[in-house]
């Protein structure tokens, strides 16, 4: 794909503005308003070489916000640079990222690994950070290094922290009932049967918001067909209408009777409470579950095991979305911006973040892990041991595919166990063709 715009960006931006000012109908006017705001909202670019840079952050909740601030403060103290911060609500950054990157973005931007990063890199909207990786490369595992690459093999992403997805359960409940961590899918299914017999809902499950079920889909897909197939399917290099995808849903069908039947009316927090309240035996969710568990005793009682092996690659792949930073296109020659992301890619930078927000795990190998909880340690080990790190369906696939196609399709599957892979393929063909 072309890494340069066919036309000067400034000119095309003017065109966009005049067009967007008039964009379509009530709904599109709604869409255009934040776009226009994004055009005029950002601060002026810091002059290159003036030991100044800027950071656009979508981490606006109080805890992560203070954590990013701590990171930036640590960099300022170390380098004496000035850093302008622009903190915006996460949805504002994510929903308007295309217009933001094309208008007046900050030099460094909080972002996510996966297709979500590779797509904009391929469109030439991000600056490569290969020179930064020369300094920080030794800090990261193979899986994380791969997750930071664009389609052209250059690096476009500096990781900050990640959090694994896996089965969370209460140690005390499992000890009391004598359950054991299953290694294979068959063992897992017999555990589910046992839990059901014991009057538990074997697997807490919540999908009112549509996205949590993608975690289950991703894992069954990777365990059935492997990590590369997951990537290719997400990028629509593989067809949805094939036996391999049907196998995924067949395997899921074996699991469906053991997942909470009330999933479609519950949020992930409600699912978490079902598990922490010992109504359910376990819960496939991300490490962010810890944020919802306020009771220290219960938190200490939580444990984690990876999704059991099904057909291929054992448990080599782990779903562990990585959050980090990208450089906007125009920061390509800003040395301070690059120094800053290089600092963010070291243990010292990431520790400054983790000191304020402990629900995630630093990705750098030289980060200080002594303050990790038991649970975090286990999660970090699982990630370090993984050969492949997937980013969750909505980060690995076209966002419209995840949002408009997969949510209704998976909710329909959860409802009655039927899925029409032909329809999914037809939609995928149309949507990916528009990109």
């Amino acid at each position, binding site marked *: 794909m072309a890494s340069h*715009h*066919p*036309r000067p960006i400034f000119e*095309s931006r003017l*065109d*966009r503005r005049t*067009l967007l*000012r*008039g*964009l*379509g*109908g*009530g*709904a*599109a*006017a*709604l*869409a255009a308003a934040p776009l226009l705001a994004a055009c005029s909202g950002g601060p002026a670019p810091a002059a290159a070489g003036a030991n100044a840079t800027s950071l656009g952050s979508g981490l606006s909740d109080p805890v992560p916000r203070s954590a990013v601030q701590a990171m930036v403060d640590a960099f300022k103290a170390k380098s004496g640079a000035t850093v302008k911060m622009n903190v915006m609500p996460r*949805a504002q950054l*994510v*929903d308007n990222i*295309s*217009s933001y990157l*094309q208008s007046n973005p900050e030099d460094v931007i909080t972002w996510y690994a996966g297709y979500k990063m590779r797509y904009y890199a391929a*469109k030439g*909207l991000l600056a490569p950070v290969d020179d930064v990786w020369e300094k920080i490369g030794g800090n990261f595992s193979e899986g994380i290094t791969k997750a930071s690459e664009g389609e052209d093999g250059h690096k476009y992403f500096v990781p900050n922290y990640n959090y694994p997805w896996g089965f969370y359960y209460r140690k005390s409940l499992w000890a009391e009932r004598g359950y054991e961590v299953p290694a294979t899918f068959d063992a897992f299914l017999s555990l589910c049967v046992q839990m059901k017999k014991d009057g538990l809902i074997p697997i807490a499950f919540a999908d*009112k*918001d*549509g996205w949590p079920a993608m975690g289950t889909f991703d894992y069954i897909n990777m365990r059935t067909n492997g990590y590369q197939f997951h990537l290719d399917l997400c990028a629509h290099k593989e067809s949805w209408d094939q036996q391999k995808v049907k196998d995924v849903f067949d395997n899921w069908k074996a699991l469906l009777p053991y997942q909470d039947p*009330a*999933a*479609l*009316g*519950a949020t992930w927090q409600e699912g978490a409470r079902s598990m922490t309240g010992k109504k359910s035996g376990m819960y496939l969710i991300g490490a962010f579950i810890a944020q919802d568990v306020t009771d220290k005793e219960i938190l200490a009682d939580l444990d984690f095991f990876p999704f059991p092996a099904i057909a291929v690659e054992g448990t080599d792949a782990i779903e562990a979305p990585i959050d980090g930073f990208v450089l906007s296109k125009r920061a390509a020659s800003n040395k301070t911006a690059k120094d800053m992301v290089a600092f963010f890619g070291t243990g010292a930078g990431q520790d400054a973040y983790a000191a304020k927000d402990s629900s995630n795990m630093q990705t750098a190998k030289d980060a200080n892990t002594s303050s990790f909880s038991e649970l975090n340690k286990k999660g970090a080990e699982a990630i370090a041991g993984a050969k492949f790190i997937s980013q969750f369906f*909505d980060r690995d696939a076209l*966002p*419209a595919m*995840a*949002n*408009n196609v997969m*949510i*209704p*399709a998976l*909710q*329909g599957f959860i*409802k009655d166990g039927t899925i*029409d892979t032909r*329809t999914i393929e*037809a*939609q995928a063909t*149309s*949507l990916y*063709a*528009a*990109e």
Partner: protein
Amino acid sequence: MSAIPQTTLPPAAAARDGVAAHTARPRRVRRLSGRDRLVLGLMVGVPTLIQAVLVWIPTLLSIALSFTRWNGLDLSGIRWAGLSNYSYAFKEYPPFWPAVAHNVIWLVFLALIATPIGLLLAVLLDQRIRGTRIYQSVFFTPVMLSLVMVGIIWQLVYARDEGLVNNLLGTAGTPGAVDWFGDSDVNLWAALVATTWRHAGYVMVLYLAGLKGVDPSLREAAALDGANGRQTFFQVVFPAMRPINIVIVVITIIEALRAFDIVYLINKGTNGLELLSVLVIQNLVGVGTVIGVGSALAVILLAISVGPIVYYLVRTFRRTD
């Protein structure tokens, strides 16, 4: 039609009319000073401009975009797509036809249940019962509440384990508890009840105004003619409120077409709560933006909405003429 009275007029009268019309018009224009013309120009021009910029140009642009494929990144990336976005919506997009069906159900429900409830409330509250104003305010409150409040209120009513309904039914916390938001067989009806709660209050206020506008002598005349209360209402008062009735019909249709907020609050309009408006938003705004498809859906919704709007405008202007 207009030719007939003219030919029956005496020729002189017709000529006089013609002359008067001819001379009166230019004289009236000439009376406008430059300043008047400026003021008039601004008064007509500014709203026209606003209308054009905010309504007409966007509408035309989204119609144009509905025939294209575009990733929203670069203008040079816009590609002609013919009718493929429309065939995507009609043939490939599974939520489309359920959304149409739900909009129809929504309309029928509002027309047959919510609106009559509003009328009934209005008639009851028009009877000079004690505390009628308090009742009016109570029933009108839902119309004024913010979306956030509406969401909280219905969450309290419908929640599976802690909700009011399931606790009244005594099923809360048991496996038999109805999942009002999550069960796609019932959640549309749950949402319709919530909508009725708002819509009825709105209709009630309009009808209250309408009832006050009915000439009391009509009722007296009906009473003198020996009509009972029921006959008086259905054969005299209700037909006399014809202008209000038309407004209500149009409002009901428009409310059914733009129904959005309550289902969006419940689960963002998925899993049995698909509506056309939700699909438009899903495809046009935020992470799931597919500009071509979203525009096509918006155009479809526009085409459906134009019918009642034109009907309403034609009626309104005919009346004022």
